[in-house]
């Protein structure tokens, strides 16, 4: 009987830790959870993120002051609708000499394969990297958020801290960029 009780206690502890680590999306002020992201296969996307060739990377390794993550999916109608706004945001950043190289965009395809993201990229002419999260492991680490979900991360000396975490599209790229600049402290 004593062993049975011990088993229950251990099981509850293990399960509690699973839920505790997986339950919540990162909040503003949090240290960005460690994510095992797949390094883009395309050379230009590795160059954009400032990553060497390799298998995996973490957000803190991206060569930027700010990284805007979009948790998305090829299968999500709102992500499809949002794609032109993300492209516009990319153009606004890359077209501004003061921001180019300092703010980077990265899409994380929840439950998507590389092939599915390639289809999405071609359909919407997405210019920035999309990384697959084929088995939902990153999605799980980020609290199983609905899509699209945006996380703004400030990177300083390799440390990544969340300053923005919000469900849903932004519709106006200029207004969203202004909000990112204000909240990140870049402005």
């Amino acid at each position, binding site marked *: 009987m004593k*062993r*049975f009780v011990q*088993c229950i206690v*251990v*099981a509850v502890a*293990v*399960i509690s830790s*699973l*839920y505790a680590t*997986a*339950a919540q999306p990162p909040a503003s002020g949090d240290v960005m959870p460690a994510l095992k992201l797949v390094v883009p296969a395309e050379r230009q996307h590795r160059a954009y993120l400032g990553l060497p060739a390799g298998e995996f990377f973490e957000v803190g390794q991206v060569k930027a002051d700010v990284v805007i993550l979009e*948790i998305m*999916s*090829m*299968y*999500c*109608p*709102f*992500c*499809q*609708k949002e794609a032109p706004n993300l492209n516009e945001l990319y153009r606004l950043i890359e077209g501004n000499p003061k921001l180019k190289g300092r703010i980077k965009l990265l899409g994380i395809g*929840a*439950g*998507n*394969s590389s*092939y*599915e993201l390639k*289809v*999405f990229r071609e*359909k919407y002419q997405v210019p920035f990297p999309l990384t697959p999260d*084929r088995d*939902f492991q990153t*999605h*799980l680490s980020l609290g*199983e958020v*609905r*899509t*699209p979900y945006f996380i703004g991360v400030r990177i300083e000396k390799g440390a990544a801290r969340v300053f923005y975490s919000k*469900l*849903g599209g932004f519709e106006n790229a200029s207004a969203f960029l202004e909000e990112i600049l204000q909240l990140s402290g870049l402005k």
Partner: protein
Amino acid sequence: MKTYKVFLVSLVVILSGAASAYGLSEAFKGNIYQTGKLKPTDSVLRVKVGEKSPDFTLPAISGERVALSQYRGKKHVVISFVPAAWTPVCSDQWPGYAILQGLFDRHDAVLLGITVDNIPTLFAWTNQMGKLWFPVLSDFWPHGKVADTFGVLRSDGTAERAIIIIDKDGIIRYIDVNDINKRPFLESIIQELEKLKG
């Protein structure tokens, strides 16, 4: 002690599975019924690759009736059976197919989406997905007859999450009865359509 270990492992596996993830679009908000983890497959196939496909005619949400035979000699047909409207993985599958018309056209193929729901339910559900270019068919009455003909009707009256590809000659070329809890990856479908080229 062995019994306790088995119990412990089982409990952790079952309960941690309850927290397992799937991507779900904000498009559906809180309107999705959570089914929990289901038995991966629950039917026995009645058709085989290489056989002539059974024909069927079903009503579509557009108001038409669509027959498999109308594509004979014209298009390859990809049938996507999904279990039920307003459930998690299903609501995260066809919206992706909504952007694939060009890809299907390039492979000289059409897509038919089938569930065992009735037309009004399918109409309301698919309206949340944006504009679907492919026919959405109701296998509601006689309930699940087409799904049962193919052997993909589950014991609870829903369909399996299955992909069946039928070539222009009406021959079944591919069958994938996927784990109902997971979405089949797109590349598996497109790879099979590639094989039908030329």
